[in-house]
């Protein structure tokens, strides 16, 4: 049974004339790493908010269809209850913190779960260790860099040991170093833990390597679902949509077009590109 089932989901914000999400159907299996990409205003963030019940419970609008999370329908379950299954990291690194120190921030969700003290301490230590933020435990979150803030937000979600982690464009407002920090944590989660990750992002390079499936969205609809290779190979389609494929893929596409080299399969990571380039050069 999939951990998340989205069935015929439609959503329209209150006061908006058009549907932000149109007939979304998507099943996500447990342990999967799903990346959802799409141009701005494609409805990505809105879809993210549907996954833990913030839509329809906290955000007003018209909601049709069903989202089933680990057997629970988000229409009937409270967000506070769904929070035990779905952890969420928001795009804005600043506004999502509730507490005045990194440590108490991570502990906040655990206090809500009414856990005993020993277990809380254990989980806080573990989560701070995973994101490598132990030395900043006493700092107020607003004093941290963007990348560090998002790592704390990830730790806060991780500590709750949810089955699903939703990351809503966590690197949108970060500098390259911050992006790198966040993606290394995501990569580590991917490699070491069996948690289901749903990542909304524009960073094709970063996810090409380790996404199981990529979902492409445009104007509130899912336009394509496939492996990174399937999705990124159709460079023309992506460019038309306004989604950038990895630069190496784009490079090979342009070379292919100019020189007619007939590269049978575009590389999607730097390593692959190096191999392919060497092969091409040797052939010359």
């Amino acid at each position, binding site marked *: 049974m999939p951990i998340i089932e989205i069935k015929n989901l439609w959503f329209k914000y209150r006061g908006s004339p058009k549907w932000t999400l149109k007939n979304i159907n998507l099943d996500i299996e447990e342990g999967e790493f799903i990346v959802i990409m799409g141009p701005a205003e494609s409805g990505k963030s809105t879809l993210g908010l549907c996954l833990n019940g*913030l839509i329809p419970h906290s955000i007003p609008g018209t909601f049709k269809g069903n989202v089933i999370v680990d057997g629970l329908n988000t229409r009937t379950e409270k967000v506070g209850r769904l929070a035990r299954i779905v952890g969420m990291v928001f795009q804005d690194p600043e506004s999502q913190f*509730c507490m005045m*120190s990194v440590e*108490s921030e991570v502990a906040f969700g655990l*206090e*809500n779960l009414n856990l005993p*003290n020993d277990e*809380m301490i254990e989980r806080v230590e573990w989560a701070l260790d995973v994101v490598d933020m132990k030395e900043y435990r006493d700092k107020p979150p607003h004093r941290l860099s963007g990348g560090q803030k998002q790592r704390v937000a990830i730790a806060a979600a991780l500590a709750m040991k949810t089955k699903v982690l939703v990351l809503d464009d966590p690197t949108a407002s970060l500098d390259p170093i911050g992006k790198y920090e966040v993606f290394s944590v995501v990569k580590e989660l991917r490699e070491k833990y069996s948690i289901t990750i749903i990542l909304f992002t524009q960073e094709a390079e970063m996810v090409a390597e380790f996404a199981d499936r990529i979902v492409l969205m445009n104007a509130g609809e899912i336009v394509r679902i496939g492996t990174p290779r399937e999705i990124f190979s159709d460079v023309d389609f992506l460019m038309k949509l306004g989604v950038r494929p990895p630069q190496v893929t784009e490079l090979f596409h342009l070379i292919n077009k100019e020189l007619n080299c007939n590269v049978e399969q575009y590389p999607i990571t730097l390593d692959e590109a190096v191999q392919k380039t060497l092969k091409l050069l040797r052939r010359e």
Partner: protein
Amino acid sequence: MSELYCPGNTFFHKLSPQTKIIFTFLMSITALFIQMPLWNLVFLLAVGIPVIWLKFKLKVTSAVLKPFLRTAVVVTCAIAVSWLLFSGVGKPIYKVYDGIYITDLSIPLAIAMALRLLSLLAITIILVVTTREVDIIAGIRKLRIPYFICLIFALALRFIPTLYDDYHTIVEAQMSRGLELEKGSLLERVRKLIIILVPWLITSFKRVTILANALDSRGFIPLQPRSFYKEPRYSKTDYVMIFLSFAVFILVLILRYYFGYLAIIPWRL
């Protein structure tokens, strides 16, 4: 934004936050029951000397205390002057204006009130310099104040620096577009302030919306049972300190209301 807390390992740092809150609360009330310049001075010295000691021990920079002191001077002067002129008791000794007199009682009262305020300030400084905000909230929580009230305090404290940064970003952004805050008539300046306030309010509302979503998605349900992370505990020193605070408080009450000391006009606080 400067933070007031100064890390250290003094007697006051080792006290648990709830003890310090009880101490602060009781000593503040005690200060309000003393109304005689000499005794106010004694009390001020009693709470002021630890402050001076902390200042040197922790190397608290003047910059940290400056905003505190500036407000203190203004408020103290205002209170002293108002008691001096409007106390309405005693024999007039100097006429300032029709119906406004400085009296034989208003001079000591004004001094007492000023000293009282300075003692309140000193007590507060001890608390905020030796206790992290996070621990103050934990202390309030430990004193069985309902959690949602603590959370409101915590969120307010947590958002002050964020909103402060937002404000400055907006001021800088508007200034880089040619807004001159310092120029123009009063009306124009007010209008310019609106140019700052509107985007600031919009940003703040956005932040609050995200925060509400974040609280929800972290499993927060108001009034549900919850556990507390690293709850502060009482040590022996804490009990002694709480006992002493109560003792001083009760002593002052007895001195004032049973023996009739410590007050110039006993029927007023």
